[in-house]
């Protein structure tokens, strides 16, 4: 489903060039769930944004669902994202001017789907927010907002779900409920799941963990080192 070869990312800073990622070779299979773990600044979030086609690498190739992302321009990458990818973010990233249901409808609307509203309603029901359809994000609690974001992520029938610290802004109990929700839906929809986390509980539930340190990779199946 996802494959990278010799992936690297360097950025210019005021103190000269900074290498964030070096020589990442990685393969993630369909329906697999993978946690990217590591200390802050190890490059895990950068890796996630590259895999999802949100950013471009300075070297190497990325393949996502049969597309070579590194050969596409932003216009084409956006289409691939719309077709294949769903996101859940630490800071939820809901549009503040849209209600819960409108936020969930958005991916389908961008594709031009006609049944956006009914599907959004169904998904919000699935995450337990059927009473909150017409609330704005600012009227929702953090956990509720993240549930809306999860509903939105599955609304586009994505093949791959990327999650960046999905429980990072939530308390333990809420975090646990969110984790359950993500894995339930993941199983139900047969989605490939790639997540970046500090949360041991979350990493433990994945099929595999990828350890990042100083922009390089060290994979150990079923063994998690958190930072």
């Amino acid at each position: 489903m996802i494959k990278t070869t010799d992936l690297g990312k360097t950025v210019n800073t005021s103190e000269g060039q900074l290498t964030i990622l070096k020589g990442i070779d990685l393969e993630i299979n369909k329906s697999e769930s993978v946690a990217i773990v590591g200390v802050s600044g190890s490059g895990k979030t950068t890796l996630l944004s590259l895999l999802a086609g949100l950013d471009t690498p300075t070297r190497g190739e990325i393949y996502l669902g049969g597309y070579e992302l590194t050969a596409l321009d932003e216009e084409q990458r956006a289409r691939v994202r719309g077709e294949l990818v769903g996101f859940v973010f630490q800071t939820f990233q809901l549009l503040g001017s849209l209600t819960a249901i409108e936020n969930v409808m958005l991916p389908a609307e961008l594709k031009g789907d006609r049944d956006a509203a009914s599907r959004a309603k169904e998904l919000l029901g699935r995450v337990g927010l059927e009473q909150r359809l017409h609330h704005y994000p600012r009227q929702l609690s953090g956990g509720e907002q993240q549930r809306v974001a999860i509903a939105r992520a599955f609304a586009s029938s994505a093949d791959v779900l990327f999650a960046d610290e999905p429980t990072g802004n939530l308390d333990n109990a809420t975090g646990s409920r969110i984790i359950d929700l993500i894995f339930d839906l993941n199983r139900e929809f047969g989605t490939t799941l790639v997540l970046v986390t500090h949360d041991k509980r979350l990493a433990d539930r994945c099929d595999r963990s990828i350890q990042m340190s100083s922009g390089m990779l060290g994979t150990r199946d079923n063994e998690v080192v958190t930072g």
Partner: protein
Amino acid sequence: MNLRLALKLLWRDWRSGELTLLLASLVIAVGTVTTITLFVDRLQQALINESSTFLAADRVISSRSPLDADILEKAETLGLEQAQTLSFLSMVFSDDRAQMASVKAVDPRYPLRGDLIIADEPFVRGNVVNRGPPPGRLWLESRLMPSLDVVRGDMLEIGVASFEVGKALIKEPDRGGGFNSVGPRVMMNLADVDKTEVIQPGSRITWRYLFAGDTTQLDTFQAWAEPRLPEDTRMFGVKEGTEGIGDALDRAERFLLLGGLLGVVLAGVAIALAAQRYSVRHYDHVAILKTLGATPNGINTIYLVIFLVLGTIATLLGSGIGYVAQSVIVQILDPYIPVALPNPGVTPVWLGLVTGFVCLFAFALPPLLKLRATQPVRVIRRDFEDESITDRFTYVFAVAGTLGLMWWYSQDWYLTLLIFSGGLVALVVLSLVAWGLLRSGRVLGMQAGSAWRLALAGMQRRGQENTLQILVFSLAIMLLLMLFLIRTALIEDWRAQIPENAPNHFAINISPRDTDAIRDLLEANNVQSQPLYPMIRGRITTVNGEPVAQWVKDHREPEVTRDTPRASSGRNLTWSATLPGDNEIIAGEWWPEDYDGNVLVSLERDLARGNNLSTGDELVFNIQGRELKARVANVRTVSWDSMRPNFYIIFSPGALDEFPSTYMTSFHLADDNKLFLNELLREFPTMTVIEVDAIIEQIQQIIQHVTMAIELVLVLIVIAGGLVLLASIQASMDERFKQHAILRTLGASRKLIMGSLIIEFAALGFFAGVLATLGAEVAVYGLETEIFDLQYHVNPQLWLLGPVIGTLLIGTIGTLATRRVVNSPPTTILREL
């Protein structure tokens, strides 16, 4: 699909209040521009209409011979109103007296513009009528009645016909000023001219053909007719026909134009700021949309649709509001606007609509287009935000739009480029200075100890944003100060042209033996008068031994215009021991009061310069057939519009003693003292009094109206400027809100936050005021000398006014607009950002 989605997003944005500020800015900007444009257009038309009364028409063809029929037919076909007058000099006889008069025969359609005022008695207020005398009757200018010793109902003869004295003619619209129409006026019906038999082949007659209609008709007609006119025939409108008024109107038009122009620029800046804020608030939205699969082109479509729909709504709404607003303004000001305003035309509404759209494209599109470049990774990492958002190309829109609009409004590349390049230089200089002011003395940290330090630290931390903000503030204040200064200079200049109590009557042909008696009579009646000057006709015959015609041919400056006085023409000469009050010597010296030497002469500047005459030149004059030799002692300026007796040539005392002369003077006669003229003329029937009070009153009235127009436009521009200030403060609000909400959560007191906000805005306002003053002085210098032909003066009071206005205005608006940060719970504010 993007179209539908765009409309949905537009609706959702609108519902959540995201669009309110942008829409409001657009509507107000378009509304202000439409209001100003409409109002200026109506005022301009009204002023031109009113000034047309000076010609009794919109266009006049003046000719020494009758005009070809095809020209009149063309005017007829174009639907122009027409009238005709015929003027000539003739003797007019009563039973026992005779007087040379300037006769004007008018047809029943005269006057096309303005009114005639007539009365039963001479020198009284009179009533307005809109047509000339009926056949068989004459209307006499007041002074003719005492000098011919006739009253209403008496009979007068012109040529071989006799007529009944009908009315006293108090005022005719196109009487004109100066000494060209010296003879007192007799007005008669055009149909009566033939029976007088005074018009013979070779008589000096002036035909005037009057035309009135709308601007398009008139312009078409003028373009068609002018090339077909014979050589001695002249066609003119109010601007060419009456120099003083034309000049005032020209400058007023330029001012109104400049006002409109600056209004557009201010509105543009307001739109740009609002659009900028909208964009900044939407970078995250776009990043999220992109992660969800929206392509850059899709984003463009979405925001272009939003922009177009918003723009259309705003422009229509703004134009509508502008239309209503100017009607309301006209309604409110009706009692104070002494001119009847014509109905608003359709053109300014179009102008408003187009201006609205151009403003939108030039100022709002660039920030919106930048949204396209937002990187999706922004949803995860905020450190990418700056590199994607600098797209210099988009500023091309703003530059092109501003230039285009300025040209469109002014139709004048010189003015456009002058203002534009001046503005650009000002921007660069101002931003450097503003940046320097903020940079002086770095401080560390938040400095939250005192309101004062917190404010200054905050200003420095947001150095770049604050530089921009100071720039915008000072631009707005500068434009306001600029208009204010030019307005003041214009008005002062006009007022100085014709001072209060300027002489409004000239008396000529005073015999030397009457001078003392007349002076006593004037004094006894409390009439302020100028000195009596002798007046003798004469002309220069040789210059330094060379015949004057040859001298003029050899020495006349090539660049002088036809209006420059010729040395060879006959002139009124006088002598004086003292330099006339408002004259100034620019070369040589004035002679001592008791001078008794060789004959000296003083020349007026244009006469001397145009004919290359200078001090020391020997001139020979021919006066009443005799020669008089004189040396040029000095050259002086004369203020011709002072309404005092003015002379090109003044001799030293005693030089003209051998020549018999008459005397002249001028005096101011208050309105209620007009009847004094009856007494004066009855007692001294040989003297001639020329009344210019009606003309002066008319000029003053027009200048008063023009002044009013200018002040009204200034008020509208002030409103537009206020809008910019508000938009600019709004644009910077999010950042301030955030910082102060965080400080509030950390326990900062209301007093501290409020104090720091007040200090910060007041300081920004102060800096902006100082910069604005600097910019305004430079800009006003350029405009006054290049565009308005005014004398530039430094304005010391401005250096106080600018900073004070800046501090108070920005301090107040800023504090009012941000006081919510201390009145709402911090979480409410933080959630909204």
